[in-house]
Each structure stands twice: as structure tokens, then as C-alpha cells.
């Protein structure tokens, strides 16, 4: 579907709406998402009754949620809706009651990227365990370095009769005293 046509039709329906076209997708504001999705789903012209995919992208200065809509009845699509929110307050209204298919995908995006979908009845982590801190797919997330011996590892090894070299022991002691966790460095990718 040509995004220009969709944009023109949406602007005719909602006069005050702000829509930008970014790479074949329609960038809209979070407060407009629900009415736009509802219109696309219900109107006879579009009948976008199949929400294929929800995902989130980290653009460093902001987070973006992307929705791929298709129509099963009319066999048209996709329409990509893109909603950008600031990193400090990533809140987007949930599409759960319009599309049941959003249930797990919004939970996934929340788990991995930390976007809060307001109105989702059961917004819990889905892949990571309860009590996990951080959101692993954000670009500033640094995973724990598994290759570094921490103090509890040294203790465990010594308890099992393994001799730990003095330099490793010293490093683990320093790490423990500094109160920091061992973190791996992530390869840096260029910003958009």
C-alpha cells in the first residue's frame, strides 16, 4: 500500500493529526495511535484486521514501536505505524483490546526494550525471569561478563580444591571492594 494515500485518508478523517512518512511507515504520536488503529481496523476501506507484528527499535534518543497491519479480507497491506516516545518516559497505549495478537508481542517489547504499554492487562516480563534488571535489547544495556572471575567464584573454586592464580584473586577482591559488577563491553554500532 502506498503510504502517501493512507496518510491523505487519515488526514481527511482526523483533521488535526500529525503524520510523517519515514521509510514507508507512518510516524504518528502516541496519543493518536488508538484512534488511528481503530479507524484502520473498522473502516470498510482498509479493514486492517490482522496485526501481524509489533516490535520496538532503540534509536538512542528515543524508542520506537512499530506495528505491521494487514487486511485478511481485502488482502492489502502492510501499513507500518511507527510511534516514537522519549527514552525517559516510554509510554504507549496498548492495542490489546483491539487486537488480541498484541498480548504476547507487547509483553516481549516491554521485556526487551522497556516500553510500557498502558492498558495491557498483564504486562509482565515474558522471556527474562522476574526480578531481572534492565532491558537487554536497548543499545546501552551491557551484559554481565561471564569470563571474569568474581569473588564468589574464587571462593567456590578454592572450596573445591582448585588453585586460583594470585592475579585473578587480586582482581576479584578489588572488584568486590569497589562494589561494581563485571560487565562486558558491547561492540559499538553507529547511530541512525
Amino acid at each position: 500500500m502506498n503510504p502517501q494515500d493512507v496518510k491523505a485518508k487519515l488526514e481527511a478523517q482526523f483533521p488535526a493529526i500529525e503524520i510523517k512518512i519515514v521509510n514507508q511507515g507512518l510516524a504518528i504520536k502516541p496519543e493518536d495511535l488508538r484512534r488511528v488503529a481503530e479507524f484502520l481496523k473498522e473502516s470498510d476501506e482498509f479493514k486492517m484486521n490482522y496485526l501481524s507484528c509489533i516490535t520496538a527499535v532503540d534509536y538512542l534518543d528515543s524508542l520506537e514501536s512499530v506495528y505491521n497491519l494487514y487486511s485478511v479480507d481485502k488482502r492489502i497491506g502492510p501499513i507500518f505505524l511507527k510511534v516514537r516516545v522519549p527514552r525517559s518516559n516510554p509510554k504507549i497505549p496498548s492495542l490489546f483490546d483491539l487486537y488480541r495478537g498484541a498480548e504476547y508481542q507487547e509483553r516481549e517489547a516491554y521485556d526487551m526494550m522497556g516500553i510500557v504499554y498502558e492498558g495491557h492487562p498483564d504486562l509482565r516480563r515474558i522471556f527474562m525471569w522476574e526480578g531481572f534488571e534492565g532491558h537487554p535489547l536497548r543499545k546501552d544495556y551491557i551484559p554481565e561478563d561471564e569470563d571474569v572471575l568474581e569473588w564468589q567464584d574464587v571462593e567456590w573454586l578454592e572450596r573445591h580444591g582448585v588453585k586460583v592464580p594470585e592475579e585473578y584473586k587480586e582482581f576479584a577482591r578489588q572488584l568486590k571492594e569497589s562494589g561494581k559488577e563485571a560487565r562486558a563491553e558491547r561492540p559499538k554500532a553507529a547511530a541512525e
Partner: protein
Amino acid sequence: MSVSASEKTYQAYDPVLHDTETLEVNLGPQHPSTHGVFRMNVKLEGERILSLKPVMGYLHRNHEQIAENMSYLGSMPYTDRLDYFNSMSNNFAYALAVEKLAKIEIPERGEYIRVIMAELTRLVNHVAAIGFLLNDLGAFFTPVLYAFREREKILDVFEETAGSRMMCNYFRFGGVKRDLPEGTLDRIKKIVQEFPPFLDEFEALLTKNEILCMRCQNVGVLPYELALNASITGPMARASGVNYDIRKVDGYSIYKRFKFQIPLGKVGDVYDRYMIRILEMRQSLKILEQAVKEIPAGPVLNPKYVAQAKAPRNFKPPKGEAYGRVEAPKGELGFYLVSDGSAQPWRYHVRAPSFINLTVLEDLCLGHKVADAVIILGSIDIVLGEVDH
């Protein structure tokens, strides 16, 4: 086949009749009926299910982040590990997304080989899925072994073309890794000829089997509206009557050239999901028959990208984004890629069909018995490598 007999087995749940203590049980994560490491948190009253919460993530390895720290071609072998039964269709979807991003063309013979491999994969998946469904029903390993006997013949074809039975890593951006070896096409022709008699035999054993009918009919009914609303795809949606097959809708690759039909179910129960898989295999055989007959000679990989396959870090698609999707055996498999112009994808997202198909698991199981939950899960046909990313 007696429909009335099976209707007797299912009665709508009535809490007044079964007023017993509720019990909370964890099915899994280590249980053969969960097809992997998957847990279902079930609340029971007697044997009937009051609520069911799936718990996943035991196999989570952050597939997406690993792919974001790798070259584009580098994650091709890793897509094999998503749905490890159908590595060829995973490769297909990923290659399609990257080709959309970088606007790469594929030579004719390459397209035909892709379609042949994708349809062989569908046969492998459906025949094994039915086998394991029967396993869940209690027909312990006899149907699975019949299914695996046929699957093995196809895996032999994969081994001689790609070098590996399951982790094929056969697709490249712009075609496939290498041409079919001599004699493989004849072998595929032979499989296409021998498969229908096997399916007839398989169906003679199962389709009208009274136990199968009684256990599967009217169990786990998924209504049309819910299937559509919950983004269910693949054989599961088509069993509920949703006429949506991406091979027809998008006509990606060269699927528009082939004549085949989309089987649709009426009821949307476990039996329909079983039947749809059988019928889809017959349609896949039709596509294979045409593809094997029409396949032209020529290169299998776009000559511009032969060097790229050897130096993957030099492959830098232009800035932009793309969503490529295929009709994988389990449903819509899509890859969403955002490129920032470097050698690594800025964002790489997998739309995994069996993960999203699990959304309705609770709706399907409510009011049924525990033993039915096992076959309902079997009929959804999940692979935990894909569910957990």
C-alpha cells in the same frame, strides 16, 4: 467416522456439577508432552482446566541481540536454530528480508531451488507434527516412526545439497549456496512420487480411526474471529477458516507461477488442524511436481554477490528498513531489519509464528481436561527454539 460419538465426549464446563477443590499444577518445564522446555501453570478443578498460564523463556538466548552484533550473513546459520525442524524456511525468510533491504535479484534457477527446499521442509514439518500429535494422544511412537521414515528420505536430500541434515544454512543473499548435486533432482522426483502412497497409508491408519476422532473432534475449538484477532497464522488459522496463505497473498519468490489450493477447515478443532496438515502436504507435493518439471538451467547465485558470500563484512546494505515474511510451515515467519548503513543490522527482529500462536492456548484449553491440554498444545505445533528466541 462418527461425529455424534465425539460430541458426547465434550460437555460444556458447568461449575455447579463439579464442585471440588481447585488445584494448581505445573505441567513442565521438563515433560515430554511440552515438546521442549515449556511450562504451563494450570489451575484445575477435578480434572477440568480453570485457567492456564504459559511460562516460557527457558531457552531464551537473546537471538536478536546476538544477530545485531554480527554481520548480516553471520546470522544466517543462526536462523537455522530458531525453528530447528525447518531451517530452510527460516533461511528463506531472512534472505528475503535482506534482499528487500539491499534490493538484490535472484536468478531463476535459484528461485526454483528455494521453492523446492521450502516445500520439502513443509513436508518434513507437517509429517513430524502429526507424528508427535499422535504421540501425545498415546499412540506411542508408532506413527512417529512412520513419519520419521519418510522425513529421513528428505533429510538425505538436504544433506547432499546443503551438507547438513537439519542445520542447513543453505540460502545466501541473491540465491543459494551451491547448485543441486547430480542425481538429486531425480531423488526429489522419486520422493514426490512415493509420498502420496505413504500419505494414503498414513491416513488409512489415522483419519477415520475412532480413538483419534473421539479425542480430537470438538476439542480445542478456535473460532474464526478469535483466530483473526489474535494474529494466528499458518495451518492453525486455516483450520479455523481464515483464508490467508502468504504464498498466495504476497506471491513472494515465484509462488505465483504454481497452481495449488489452500485447504480450509470448518470447525477449527484439533482434528481440523490435523486434517489441514495432511491436505497441505498434498498441495506441497503438487508445487514440488511442477517445480521439478519446470526448473531451468543457469546460475543459482546472483553473480554480483558471489564475492560477498566470501567476505560478509563488506556487505553493507543502504540505510533503511525492511520486513520480509514467508509462509513457514508453522505460520507467518517474518524478519524486521533496520539498517544504519554499516555491516551489522541496527535492529533485527523475528516474528516467530509458534510464539504468537501460543496466545490463544488458554482460550483453547478452558473447560477441557488435562489430557486434552496436551493434545491442544501438540496441535498448535510449537518449537521452543523459536518460541523463546
